[in-house]
């Protein structure tokens, strides 16, 4: 009897301990406030002799993660809380992508990205990222003007996507954005630059994206916000 009681007590303690660890980690996990944002289908498109699904993905970049992205989202018809914090429990003054850091697009689709960029910027570590890589035509459109790159010494964030290790070899996408028209006075939801580009989604799988503009602190500007998951980094699910 005594044995059983002690056994049960040990079991309870063990379960509680493991439970606490799991609870702690679940709290630690980044939870995007709106979950995964799926690209909206707008029909089909003919590209290089193939009919592909045409989808539109919309997101924005804000100088702080408590951005008032309500206006834009309303226009996109997405449900979210205006003024909400992109990283619950995180640092609200850090810049962030919104409304989520998880995006999903269909495999092989023709994806058009509409990116509203409201943040300021500066010089990038590697001018390579001031150029457009991997889009259709190798170009992006900024406020209606088609370009192949931006000023490496005065640029804002990038949207850089690469596949998970060892998969879908060859897929690579990196698109820079110019700084907010308000420059260093960048404010949420003002001075926006609309960056548009299209790419053909790769094979099914998980792709990681992040920003390669050093907008954090520390060595190479990659500390703080850049080293923390969820603000300037996330996943592109190709489904």
């Amino acid at each position, binding site marked *: 009897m005594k044995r059983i009681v002690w056994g049960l007590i040990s079991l309870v303690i063990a379960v509680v301990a493991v439970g606490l660890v799991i609870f702690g980690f679940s709290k630690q996990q980044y939870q995007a406030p709106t979950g995964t944002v799926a690209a909206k289908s707008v029909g089909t498109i003919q590209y290089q002799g193939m009919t592909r699904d045409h989808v539109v993905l919309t997101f924005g970049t804000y100088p702080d993660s408590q951005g008032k992205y309500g206006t834009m989202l309303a226009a996109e018809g997405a449900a979210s809380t205006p003024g909400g914090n992109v990283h619950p429990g995180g640092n609200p003054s850090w810049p962030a992508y919104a409304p989520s850091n998880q995006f999903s697009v269909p495999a092989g689709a023709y994806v058009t990205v509409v990116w509203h960029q409201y943040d300021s910027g500066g010089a990038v570590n*590697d001018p390579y990222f001031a150029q457009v890589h991997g889009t259709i035509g190798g170009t992006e459109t900024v406020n209606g003007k088609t370009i192949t790159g931006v000023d490496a010494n005065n640029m804002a964030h990038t949207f850089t996507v690469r596949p998970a290790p060892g998969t879908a070899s060859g897929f690579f996408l990196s698109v820079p954005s110019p700084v907010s028209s308000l420059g260093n006075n960048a404010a949420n939801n003002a001075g926006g630059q609309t960056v548009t580009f299209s790419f053909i989604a790769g094979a099914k799988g998980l792709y990681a994206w992040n920003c390669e503009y050093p907008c954090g602190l520390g060595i190479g500007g990659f500390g703080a916000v850049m080293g923390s998951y969820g603000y300037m980094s996330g996943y592109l699910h190709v489904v």
Partner: protein
Amino acid sequence: MSVVEEHSSHDHHGYYAEGGNHHDTPQAKHRKEHMLVWMLIGGDMVFTALIIFAWFYLKALNVEGMWRGAACTPNFNAGINQSCTDGIGNSITHIIPTASPVHTFAVAILAIVGAGLMWFAEVQARQGASRKTTTPLLGLASLAILGSLVWQIYQFQVLPFTTVQGAYASVFEYIMGSNVGHLLLILLVATGLFIRSSKGLHENGRWYQIHLSRLFSVWVAFSITLLACMVTFFN
């Protein structure tokens, strides 16, 4: 026969009679604590050696010409955009001056004086001096060490640079911080000895705690002096 020596060839009789560990003779206690102090000094020597290594290594590498904030070339080969900034975005384009050796050596000399006074107190106590002799000596030693500590902290105010200005400044201030830590430690010890001496706890040949404290204080004074010479003559 027990594990404890009944007779010691050393002249250590009767210097320790109060409490202490519940199963130690004074001789055994002295022997152990002597070993303890030397091992602590040994560990501290490794630490000091590593500081010296860091100093000469960074000086020799002179990464991006930033040993003393000099010869800074923006966009060094890899185009690092943080080149020539002080870590908080301010550009450094000047050579920072070296720290004044006056302050550096003032700290060292005061530490030497403190350790020397402690040593003198030990000699007196060994010769059977009463508290009337040792207490003022230990009090003066504490004051000298306190002076050294205060001066070391004061030096932070008068440095011609801040931590962010190059590797030279970094190691220099790290050494100062290490000195503060060491001086604080021997200040506590010296103050304790002073209070204990004033209560007569070092009378009647019970000098061994002064002896042990002196060993460590001398090492600290030595290491401070060594580092002071290094930062002054090899900068």
